[in-house]
């Protein structure tokens, strides 16, 4: 659990850093995630969340939200929420709000596909996950 601390003159690659972090995460049980979406409604509801965020934090400049569907091996990025803002406090708060809202409102579903024993102790199997609250 050694932290990564680096002051570097190299160009910084976000993907490399994410991969280095994720490589440390042990993949014990869940082999693969698979995401499914009601794509047009998901895009519409994400855009609607962004519109609301722009009203709540009037300092936001640019917003990008990208979500993976299909197979997503543990360790690959499933969702990115990126914002630019005049002041970092607004940007950070907006990201926090956007991921919270996305997780309970946007019609996207995650399935865990087990290989080394499912949650019920059996081998294999698949389970649809649920986030905290109903939309």
């Amino acid at each position, binding site marked *: 659990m050694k932290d990564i601390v680096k002051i570097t003159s190299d160009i910084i690659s976000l993907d490399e850093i994410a991969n280095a972090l994720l490589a440390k995460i042990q993949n014990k049980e869940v082999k693969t995630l698979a*995401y*499914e*979406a*009601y794509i*047009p*409604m*998901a895009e*519409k*509801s994400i855009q609607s969340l962004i519109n609301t965020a722009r009203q709540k934090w009037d300092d936001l400049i640019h917003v990008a939200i990208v*979500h993976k569907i299909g197979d997503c091996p543990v360790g690959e990025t*499933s*969702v990115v929420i990126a914002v630019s803002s005049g002041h970092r406090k607004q940007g950070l708060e907006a990201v926090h709000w956007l*991921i919270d809202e*996305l*997780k*309970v*409102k*946007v*019609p*996207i*579903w*995650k*399935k865990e596909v087990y290989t080394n024993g499912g949650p019920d102790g059996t081998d294999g199997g698949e389970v*649809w*996950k*649920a*986030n905290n609250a*109903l*939309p």
Partner: protein
Amino acid sequence: QGNFAQFTVLYFASAKDASKVDTDKFEWSAGINAQTLTNLLVERHPDLGYVLKTSMFAVNMEYMENDSSWTVQPGDEVAIIPPVSGG
């Protein structure tokens, strides 16, 4: 079937596992609300009963209240939205 007004139903995630189809068509009639829609769906796909207890309906990509404040209109796209788990 072209002589009858219809509406479309979309199934996702655990709802699709239960119905075994992505989508199908239902004959439209006046007054189909959340409760009667649930009955129609379980009649066609008995395994859906359990899933519907925790699902929402979205009509034309808008979440609907789980009550009788709305009815299905001809041509509507009704989606069954099990508890979401994006992110």
